[in-house]
């Protein structure tokens, strides 16, 4: 048990630090890299809980595809690489206020609601179970999501093609 806690603490720290750096760094590429750290940490926390399929999927899809996508986007929009520029807009203070407000409300609600609920010790979820449930009960959403991906694909092409 203690090992889990320590592991979790380590993961949480890296996630938070990484997230903070994402939203405060002046270098766009650095921001993307800090995002990688955040995503990895989140994947690790999935594994910690026992959701092995999602954890692996997270790493594969998010870090493997989406970050690459971001890097391509950064490249294509000629974002200044390596230079520190002002990347925070004028009204950042409102953002701070709102973020703190959200954090406060959520924190209070969570502590108030879930107090000291404990996760079960054995909470491993097998991939087989996931696939069974996915292809039996949640088949239609699965197909719909596929169509959604198709729509996104077509949409992105239509939007971004050169006339």
């Amino acid at each position, binding site marked *: 048990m203690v090992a889990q806690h320590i592991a979790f603490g380590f993961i949480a720290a890296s996630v938070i630090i990484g997230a903070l750096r994402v939203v405060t760094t002046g270098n766009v590429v650095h921001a993307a890299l800090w995002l990688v750290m955040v995503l990895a940490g989140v994947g690790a926390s999935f594994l910690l809980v026992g959701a092995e399929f999602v954890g692996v999927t997270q790493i594969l899809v998010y870090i493997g595809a989406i970050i690459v996508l971001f890097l391509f986007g950064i490249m294509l929009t000629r974002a200044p690489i390596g230079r520190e520029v002002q990347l925070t807009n004028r*009204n950042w203070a*409102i*953002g701070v206020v*709102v973020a703190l*407000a*959200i954090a406060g*409300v*959520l924190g*209070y*609600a969570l502590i108030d609601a879930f107090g000291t609920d404990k996760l079960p010790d054995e909470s491993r979820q097998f991939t087989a179970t996931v696939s069974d449930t996915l292809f039996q009960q949640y088949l239609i959403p699965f197909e719909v999501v596929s169509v959604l991906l198709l729509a996104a694909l077509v949409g992105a092409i239509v939007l971004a093609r050169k006339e």
Partner: protein
Amino acid sequence: MILHWVWLMPFIMAMSFVAILFFGKRLPKKGSEIGIVAVGACFVIALLAAGSWISRVNDAQHTAPAPAAATAGHGSTEAASTSNNEVVGENGGGGGGAEEHTVDPVTTEKTWFEIGGEKFTVGTMVDGLSVMMLVVVTIISLLVHIYSTDYVGGDRRYTHYFAFLSLFTASMLMLVMSSNTLQFITSWELVGLCSFALIGHWWEEKPNSDAALKAFITNRVGDVGLLVGMIILFWSAGSFDILRIDSLANTGGIDHLLLLVAACSLTAAVMSKSGQFVLHTWLPDAMAGPTPVSALIHAATMVVAGIFMVARLYPVFFHGLSIGDGNLNLLAIVGAVTVVGGAGLAFVQADIKKVLAYSTVSQLGYMVMALGVGAWTAALFHLFTHAFFKAGLFLGSGSVAHSVHSFDMKEDMGGMKKFMPKTYWTFLVCTGALIGLPPLAGFWSKDEILAGGHQLGTHNAYEIFMVVGVVGALMTAAYMTRCVYLTFFGEPRGAAADPHHHPHESGPRIVVPLYILSALAVVAGLVNFPWGPDSVKLRFEHFVQPVGEYFPHLGVVEFVWPLAIISTLVVLAGVGLAYAYWFRGAFHGVTERSRVARGGYVVLANKYYFDHLYTGVIADGTKGPIARASYWVNQNVIDGVVNAVGIGSRKVAEFLYGTVDQEVVDGAVNGSGFGAEGAGQLLRRIQSGKVQQYGALLFGGAVILAGVLVFTL
């Protein structure tokens, strides 16, 4: 029977008027033939009507008297159909020796229109008076028509003249047979209109149109009295019907004061229409019209309309003015003043027609005076005879003027006796009738008036009027002798003496009417002969004087020899005086020697200054100061008020516009606009276009909601 059809007479004349207007110019005789035929037909109908009435009176006399004294209802209250009322009964009033019987007039009636339950009718009422007038009007009109074909021949408006003669005859006939006062007033005005049109026949010359206007306007002044009187009678009797008014007035159904006021008002109308003092001034000026017109209208027929009205509505006057009690009343006094005043003015005229005009005024005064003393039959008998001899005199003067082309006796006449013998003799006969020489017509009628003044009224109250009548007779004799002398005797002067154009006797169409009229002037007096068997004696009175509920009981006037002899002597004295002056040259130079005589002459020559009073004092006074004063009031007071109201309204409007509308109302409106704009400007800042700001608002709102949910639930 024929008495129901008398309305045909004005109808025929009216049709003649229309026919002459439309077709007259194309006919060979230019329309005069239509007029003559129409009048001839009316004359025949009038004679038949007279005969019918006479037989009616005779039948009434011979019918056995009914025991009850009730008279049958008059036909006048039935509507929309002709009614024939021949019921007679014995008059319960008793009285003197002559048998008394009620002869009701024959009436016809048609409803004209109805307003609010009040029926307005047209109709005829025929009794002895109407029949007498019908005969007079038609015969004079017929003679005048024939005379005019020669006198007015070749005139610029010949057809128009005959059209108006027909219209006049129609109106006069309708007047004398009117059954109600509305119809009476209408025909009264119509005869006035025809008089205006005919006096102004040669209106291109200003004096003629002035005379026509003067006649019409003076008559209008009197017509105020007519309307007031008729209105009073309508309201007090409750009806326009003449028989009803007369019956009510006679039996005491109308208050005495109302009758008095009505009688005085109606006297004003008599004064204007029948040329009494003070509204007589139009009659001499009316001589500007053609002579046949003067003969017909201003001697024989129209001017007697006033006399006829008094005679028709006699109960109103008799009871209103208390004639029966010997009251010195308005009618008698006006008549007496007119007799003397008119006669006086006739002495100083150079125009022959003006002499005759003043003579007419004087003779009308006799008739009014007779009515004023209660001698009803005498007045109407005088009207009857006067029509003939006065028309004869006028036509005779026209005959003379036609040959010398002038009316001025002093300038252009003289010695006409040898040039125009027929005119001379007829003129002389008519003069004799006028001055009252027995046995000519005027003697009988004038003497009856004098006898009336002598005998009627309590305690000989009316004797003064007899004296006035005698004085008038003297003056009449004198001025007529003067007129005859100046015209027919002496040496020819002026146009009469023109060597190239000798005056000659007029043609038959002029002379034959003169013959007829002078013949009538001789025999007309015999219709009221005071002696003889019952079938001959007093025929006029018998047939004309009404007997019935609607006519007051009058005193009987008897022929007295002393009065007749005195009046004849007075007349001869008048003739003698004038003869001495003119034929023999006595009394000449009186006006140079005596200041009184000269003053009197000046007064007479200026016609008692009446004209000066009317035009100079009354008209100019109104035109001058009164008009100026009212103009001042109008400009300053009335216009001042109007202008002040206008200016005030404008100032209020300016205030309203400037202050209320521009500032208050517009201010509110603009203010709301500005307010909306300001609010919009404020809210506009939320729309910055920046997505992150919208995001901030979104998240912020969500947080707040979440907070609310979390912290309160």
